[in-house]
């Protein structure tokens, strides 16, 4: 049967080649959108590692163009901001950090572990940070004020970094980096389950926290205050907070936003390309579907004689249906095969590592299914038409 269909298709190779090309490109389009969508879905299912509810993020803009220099007075002022905020009625807690969760900025650093270079994002935070955001530790402990006196740089890493750097060994107390010029060695104090500062849709990354006590004159002041408030705090507190901060540092500027807002705009930023791509692809597939339907329809009309002859020789209607749909699925198989050949090259460029092997394979599955379903759907009506060809007509046809 298949050999027979192959022969029939080969007889019209030129027209079929173009149909295969069309199906091939459709496959690539579906694969692209499916990869992005499944990538987001897989990320979304992973634990975020912190709680963003009822936390306000205050961006402190010291109105300096460069962030790598600072003065002691700025550190003092910052410490005073923290004290003032903490004393405000309605504020349950205050933490500081260099980057806010859900912001698009990130700091990154790299280490050499057993000859491998590992790159990880990090943030500089104080001892209030983990309790305030409900970050849970799976091993070791979180920072405490006395850690400022340690001879080494204490860091808390996420489980992914622990696996990457230490494998199955106990990461607590492990050395991430040897001492180097002007910098103490870096040792692990604890491990958190995760902290995905990029938000739910972002790819999970290797991450660690460095300790940055408020008022440390050796480090540039942080840029964010995270303020925990009670469940249904009125927004009026926001204005009150803003005025109080402004009173402490009249030369600086402050932007207050609930983390919920930051989260929403972060998610929207990532989803917009998917939505736009999805809508365009939907229309493209609809267009391809209509085109295929038209072409097959025309094919069936042209082949009235052949199909009628089969019926006249006793082939049941279902056999004719099967032939039309089968031919179409055969072409689709060629198109999909070509697509698979191209997609199979992507792991060489690190695509499957980036999105995750599971996502990559499922996206291929989705694309294959979608293209076959589309092709079968388009062949359905023409096959019904083909089955209806009265044998007598076919024999008379000239």
């Amino acid at each position, binding site marked *: 049967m298949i050999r027979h269909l192959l022969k029939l298709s080969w007889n019209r190779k030129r*027209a079929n080649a*173009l*149909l295969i*090309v*069309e199906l091939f*490109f*459709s496959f690539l*389009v579906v694969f692209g959108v499916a990869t992005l969508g499944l990538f987001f879905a897989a990320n979304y299912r992973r634990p975020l590692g912190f709680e963003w509810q009822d936390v306000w993020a205050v961006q402190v*803009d010291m*109105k*300096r*163009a*460069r962030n790598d220099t600072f003065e002691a007075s700025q550190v003092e002022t910052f410490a005073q901001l923290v004290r003032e905020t903490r004393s405000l009625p309605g504020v349950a807690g205050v933490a500081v950090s260099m980057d806010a969760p859900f912001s698009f900025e990130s700091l990154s650093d790299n280490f050499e572990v057993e000859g491998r270079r590992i790159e990880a994002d990090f943030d500089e935070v104080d001892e209030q940070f983990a309790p305030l955001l409900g970050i849970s530790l799976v091993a070791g402990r979180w920072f405490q004020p006395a850690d400022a006196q340690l001879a080494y740089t204490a860091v808390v890493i996420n489980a992914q970094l622990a696996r990457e750097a230490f494998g199955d060994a106990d990461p607590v107390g492990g050395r991430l980096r040897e001492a180097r010029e002007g910098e103490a060695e870096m040792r692990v104090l604890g491990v958190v389950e995760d902290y995905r500062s990029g938000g739910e849709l972002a790819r999970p990354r290797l991450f660690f926290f460095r300790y940055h006590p408020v008022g440390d004159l050796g480090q540039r002041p942080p840029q964010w205050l995270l303020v925990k408030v009670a469940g249904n705090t009125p*927004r*009026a507190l*926001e*204005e009150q907070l*803003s*005025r109080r901060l*402004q009173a402490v540092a*009249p*030369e*600086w*500027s*402050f*932007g*207050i936003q609930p983390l919920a807002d930051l989260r929403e705009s972060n998610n929207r930023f990532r989803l917009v390309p998917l939505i736009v791509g999805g809508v*365009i692809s939907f*229309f*493209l597939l*609809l*267009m*391809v579907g*209509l*085109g*295929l*339907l*038209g*072409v097959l*329809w*025309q*094919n069936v*009309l*042209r082949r009235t004689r052949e199909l009628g002859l089969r019926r006249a020789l006793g082939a049941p209607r279902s056999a004719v249906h099967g032939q039309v749909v089968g031919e179409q699925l055969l072409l689709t198989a060629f198109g999909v095969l070509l697509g698979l050949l191209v997609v199979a090259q992507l792991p060489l460029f690190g695509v499957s590592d980036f999105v995750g092997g599971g996502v990559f394979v499922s996206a291929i599955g989705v694309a294959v299914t979608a293209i076959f379903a589309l092709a079968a759907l388009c062949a359905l009506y023409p096959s019904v038409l083909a089955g209806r060809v009265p044998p007598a007509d076919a024999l008379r046809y000239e």
Partner: protein
Amino acid sequence: MLRNYLIVAWKVLMRRKFFTFASLFGVGVTLMVLLIAVAMLDHVFAAQEPEIHWDRTLGIYTISLTGERRATNGPPGYGFLSRYIAPLAELDSVEAVSLVSMPETIVSYDRGRKIPSFLRHTDAEFWRLMSFQFLEGGPFSDLDLAHGNFVAVINRSTRERYFAGASAAGQTMDVDGRSFRVIGVVEDVPILRISSAADIWVPTTTFRNTHYQQDFTGGFLGLILARDRADFPAIKAEVEARARQAEKNLPDPEYYQTLSAPADTLFESVARGLGGDPGGAHAGRLRVILLGLGLLFLILPTVNLININLSRILERASEIGVRKAFGASSWTLVGQFVVENLVLTLLGGLLGLLLAKIALAAVNSSGVIPYSHFTINGRVFLYGLTMALVFGVLSGVYPAWRMSRLHPVNALNGRFS
């Protein structure tokens, strides 16, 4: 001749409605997507109010300082611009130079309500370089700058937010915790016009402190209005020369030794930002990339339309046979079929235009991009027309060639290979 082609084309379109629908749908959707993309690019890069002199404006959009161990790259700072770029205004080829800050998001509180807005610090020259439509009052002057007056120009939407649409000139308002007097109200400027858009414009001298006057990097951009586009190369060279001068007086020579702050059109600047070779033809490359993306997008619709067209030819075999038998050359037939296909794509283009208009209006009114008014203007329409023609020829030539090669006897018999 052409008239006959058109009549035949119309008859063919009407003969098999499903094919016509499938083709028009494909062409319409394809051109809609392309038109939307072009309209958005046009919205960002082309001249439009208030940047009506945009085609003869150069900008210093980025500065990069590099040293042996460090590099920094971002918008230039006021200190660099005021010392090295502002004096360009004395050149004969330069009409005006304006230094404006990049918009910053600020939050103001007005009677218990939180109002977020984009704030921009500008000089008085800015108002001469741009052509804002004032609904009320006017811009601030050099005098306001000199005295550091707390005056503000706001846009229509900000007037709506603060004053519920009532007259605002002369009123005071809270801007980021400080009180400003409104002296002018202008029409909203699309937020994607990165050189002029804001909700509130205030004099540069109202910054909270004076650090900005020393900065080489951060937060500003310099706009240079040339008398003529032809002066661009000379102005660019002059900016280059000033950058060399500035290199000798860098604020932290221990970290950074070289400085680059090219004068670019916005398009050139974006092209440069995409990286690659320094000093290369960035704008040309970006154009090629955009064109390439457009063509890549066109592949699937083109193949689809070719398939439909190939099927369609076959039902006209007897017509082709007759024409060939009576001596029509292959070229004539190719011409005829391409014309027919062009009729189809132009009709589809019209449909695409309509769909694009609806989609753009929806984007505008949704407020996803503040103050956007994406439109299909003459320029975009011309692009659309060109794209429809290219699409029509691409998808028409191959089927036409196949058709013209049908042997008259076979064609008359209804046999194809």
